[in-house]
Structure formats: C-alpha cells, structure tokens
C-alpha cells in the first residue's frame, strides 16, 4: 500500500466492505518512495483478511477500489493515489500474466517484510519455504523503514 494515513484508512474500510473482513492490521510504516527519489515518503500497512472471493476476484475488487479512490495526483507522477497489492492468498501459488501470488517482489522490500513480520513472523512463504522472519533477515533492501 502507499500514501497518507487517511487514504490507508479509507482503503482498509473499503476492503473490509468489498473484499472481506479485516482481521488484523499492522502499524503504519513510512518509506521513501521505492525506486523514485522525487516522490514524498509512502506509508505502508499490511492487513489480513478473510474472503470468499477467489484470487482473481480479489484482484478485480482491489483494482476497482484503487480506481474509486481516484487518480488525483497528490503524489507527483504516481498513476494512482493508492497502491494495493496481494501478498499471499493462503498458501496458494498463482502465476498469471496479471497476477502473481505470492507477490513476486515482497522478499526484496523491507517496507513489506517489516509490517508482515509484525503480524506473522512464522508464516512460511510457499515458494521460498522460509518464514517471514528469515526473509526479512536475508533482505538487502537499504531503504529506511520507520514505524509511525
């Protein structure tokens, strides 16, 4: 996820309504915008939800939430004001042209691993067969991540 705490709260409430009940949520963590030094800092949060939707339906719903939250460029250059990603769907491994689960870059991003580690340090990544704590220890991402 990204951006301001108000947007994160709004997204969480829309996800809770449209995708499924949010059972747990990490603290907010701020990072410099990944791969783009011109942008202001991002806020990130990991949430756990239970849903009856299948992964493709979750993706569609998330995209429509992103769209409904608008593309006003409060963040310079960003195509959307909020970025919602699916990290895991239980232990499923999905390889579609527009959807890869587990998220293919999570192991390279501390702003994902740190909040994830707060929630579920022992969850085993179904592809790498390592838990989140180990992935975080092995992660070489140098962007500072700060708890808010």
């Amino acid at each position: 996820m990204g951006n301001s705490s108000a947007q994160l709260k709004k997204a969480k409430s829309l996800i809770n309504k449209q995708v499924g009940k949010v059972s747990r949520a990490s603290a907010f963590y701020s990072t410099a915008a990944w791969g783009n030094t011109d942008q202001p800092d991002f806020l990130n949060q990991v949430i756990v939800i239970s849903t009856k939707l299948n992964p493709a339906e979750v993706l569609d719903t998330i995209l429509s939430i992103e769209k409904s939250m608008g593309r006003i460029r409060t963040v310079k250059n960003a195509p959307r004001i909020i970025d919602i990603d699916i990290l895991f769907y239980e232990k499923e491994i999905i390889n579609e042209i527009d959807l890869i689960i587990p998220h293919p870059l999570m192991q390279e991003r501390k702003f994902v691993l740190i909040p994830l580690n707060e929630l579920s340090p022992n969850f085993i990544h179904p592809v790498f067969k390592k838990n989140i704590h180990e992935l975080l220890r092995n992660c070489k991402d140098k962007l500072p991540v700060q708890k808010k």
Partner: protein
Amino acid sequence: MKYSFVTIEGNIGAGKTTLANILSKHFDARLVLEEFAENPFLPKFYQNPDQYAFPLELFFMAERYKQLKDLLHSNDLFQNITVSDYLFTKCLLFAKVNLPEEEFRLYQKLFDIINPQIIQPDLLIYLHSPVSKLQENIKKRNRSFEQDIPNDYLYTLQETYTQYIKQHNIKTLFIDASNADFIGNPKHLEIVLEALDKDYENGQHFITLP
C-alpha cells in the same frame, strides 16, 4: 543511448507509434511497427467481439511472431538500435481481456511455446494517458473501426498493462503522457532522450512532461 532495443507500449491511442517513429529517426534505428491494418479480423472484432476475439488475437500472435523472429535472425541486431511499438507479451495481455477463460488457456499454451524464442527489449517505455485523452487521440486519428471503443474496454486494458508491468518488475520508463506532444514540443522529446542515457534498474521509473 544506453539501450539497444527499446519498446514503446501503452493503451490504444496512447501515442506509441508516433514516439517510436520519432525515436527511430533520431537514432537512425531499425523500426518495428505493429501491422494492425493487415489484420482482417480487427474491424469485425470491434463489431462483434465475442465472435472474433480468438481469430483476432491468434492472427496478431502469428504476425508479431513473424516480425520479431526475423529480428533475432538478422545479424546487425547488436550493432544497431531497434525501436518497436509493441511487446510480444501484448498478445497475452489483450487475450486476457478479450477471451473467455477456456480460450485464454489455449491461447496461453501457444504463447508459452512461442515466447521463449522472442527477443525481449532491454527497456520498456510505457505511455500512460487517462481514458478521456485516449478517446480524444482515437477520434483525431480517425480510424473508422475504432470510433466506438467503450471507455470500460480502455480502462480494463490499462489495468492489465499496469498490473503486468508492476507484477513482473519490468525495467520501465513510465511516462505520464496525458499532455505529451513529442512532435510539437521539443522539450518533451528531450526529456525522453535524456532518460535513455541513464542506466535504470528493474522496476518502474516515473516521468512527467512539463
């Protein structure tokens, strides 16, 4: 110029071909352009998508394969610069949007057999424009069969493209092209040319035009 093979992608009406033409002239590069005019199914598809989507996408895959395979077999690939206005993966992205599930699976099987033989660009330039701007451009270029494209179709294509780029961590210059004028505004072209002199890491790199 740090790249030997640059591909320009974007939604229908984003300005891919225009920029590809300009860049190929500037670098005296080989130019590979989509030959949409030769696809007999395209006008029929816009009239009746359900019936013509599969032959349409199959035709595109065959044509794109033929074009890009020749590229690999020509000797001067590594001496010269190549600029194209489509990715081979475009086949699968459009198929994902246009085909029902079972047909898409079949299409993907064929794609997966062919795709490893295709040379991939070392930089992708993605032109991003809001749907209203795309519709404006589509109107302006006035291809008769394109004049009734629904907004929803363009939205869905856009999501599919951006989702693909995001998920696959493709080395991409993501250009906000909503006010792009590469012909009339020399500053716009200059910004792109400057960017092409940089060594980018994988992932998206956002650029706006003044």
